[in-house]
């Protein structure tokens, strides 16, 4: 088991950083390239130096709970201003002018003031 940014990875797991909220394919590729980690590397095969570097780099980024909180703050700011977008968030309806007759399941799921992810 290897700890990367507070998460316990099994050694046989591929060293993909997309497990973290806020790290997508592009950022993951960049980070792995920076520390010379090839795309099919297993976590167990990484050197101690690479893991500490990776941890340091991930700490600098706004990911996981920091990113969630940032998004919630943004939505809360809109709501407090009383803007249309804030109200739509609060109502759980589409924010950007989509039709509401059908197909708003995603908005119902995600658009809320205390947005989960």
């Amino acid at each position, binding site marked *: 088991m290897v700890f990367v940014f507070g998460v316990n990875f099994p050694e046989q797991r591929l060293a993909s950083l997309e497990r973290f909220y806020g790290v997508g394919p592009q950022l993951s*590729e960049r980070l792995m390239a920076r*520390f*010379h980690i*090839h795309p*099919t590397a297993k976590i167990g095969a990484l050197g101690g130096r690479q893991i500490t570097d990776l941890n340091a780099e991930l700490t600098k980024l706004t990911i996981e709970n920091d990113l969630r909180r940032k998004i919630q703050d943004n939505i809360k700011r809109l709501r407090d201003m009383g803007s249309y977008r804030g109200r739509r968030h609060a109502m759980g309806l589409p924010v950007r002018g989509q039709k509401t007759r059908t197909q708003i399941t995603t908005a119902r799921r995600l658009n809320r003031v205390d947005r989960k992810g």
Partner: protein
Amino acid sequence: MPPSTCLRCLPIRPAPSPRPVLLCHIALPPAQTAAFSTTTNLSAAVAKKRPNSHTGPPKRGVKALNIKKTQRIKSGRPPAPGERKALRKRIVLSNTNALEVQGMPDLSDKNITDASLVCRVVGIPGLVVDSLRAVEAFKPTQGWGLFRRPAALVRKETLQLGRYIQEVETAEGKKTIRRVVVGERGSGKSTLLLQAMTMAFVKGWVVVNIPDAKDLTIGHTEYGPLFNTNPTQYVQKTYTANLLSQISKANKAVLSKLQLSQQHDLPIPIQSNISLDRLADLGARDPDVAYPIFQALWAELTAPSTKGAVRPPILFTLDGINQIMRYSAYLSSDVKPIHAHDLALVRHFINALSGAQALPNGGIVLAATCESGKPPSPTLELAVAQSEARVAGAEEVPQPHPYKAMDQRVLDSMRDVEVLRLKGLDKDEARGIMEYYAASGMLRERVDEGLVAEKWTLAGGGVVGELERESVRMRI
């Protein structure tokens, strides 16, 4: 004469017999009677309306699509990590059901330039088979598992290789021969490399083989920058360790007799008179020191021979050269693709192939292209065409396309490398190998001129892989 009765008035079919009159039918109107049923239409249940494209989408909460998921039946334990790969890469070198071919000569250091062996199939000596297996010279796609023991056809190009080996050994100033083997798919390029390795092993040379260059460039092994290099080179330590283990295993007989003769700056302390096979083993054990040890080993192998320490010639081979004549799948720290020539091992080979790094004890550097799943490498194609034109003494050497970017590093590396083009076998060679198939009991037909001509033609003009496929593998 017209008939006396009007034809129109004649009845077409006989009049129906009067219907039997039943009491229950009397009251019913004729439209409600069913021809073959005694049940009335009205009392039948109303058919349920089936949903179709006109009925619109199903109501909310109604499950519209009702497909049962097929249950995956789990039988036995799942394959262990690496088990499936081992199965995929498994090399079978013997078929106990095939007949032993009587009177088949073995390749030896005496007969590698014997012209009378051309068109005959020659066995690979048992000791060499182990070495060849260690350097992964046998490929899983080749048909070794069809015959009793490993053997290969001596063709004209094989004899040519034998002559190269003799040339290197007898040359005054320790000659290096550098060739790239090209040819269409199935034309026997990898087998020719294997034959070269066989000859080198029986001659007591040191053989270093990179079995598939794809492994180096597709980004599946560890890599890391090499410090103090400009442009930055990248070391693949795990691959290097594996290569060292292969070198040590395959060349044990030769390397165990050679000892360290120079001072090397290595990260681990080593005995001053350690034998070279043990040195390679040390590198194979620890990937972190593999590359420095590989460099030390190469320095030792290419150290000038003295009376006390004679260094043997080297055969350095690589299969799949088109994989290293392009950008690799690795990324540098600023997220730019790394050119394959910046990978340390690849560069090492390219230096040897281009002649930038000499082999002072002589040797042969051989590379073969790989045609299956080959990546586009237009510069290599141009370089091959240029080389062929140069050798043929053509007046016009092909020039790069003016509006297409060419890879200058590839052109530079191939500047004075000669090309050995493998074409199809000729009829005599085809006959030789087909007689071997028949003697092994794998081809159950009389090998005569007609059959040879038929198979030769069907094999696209004697392409040996196709010839094997249609004569031995294919069962209709």
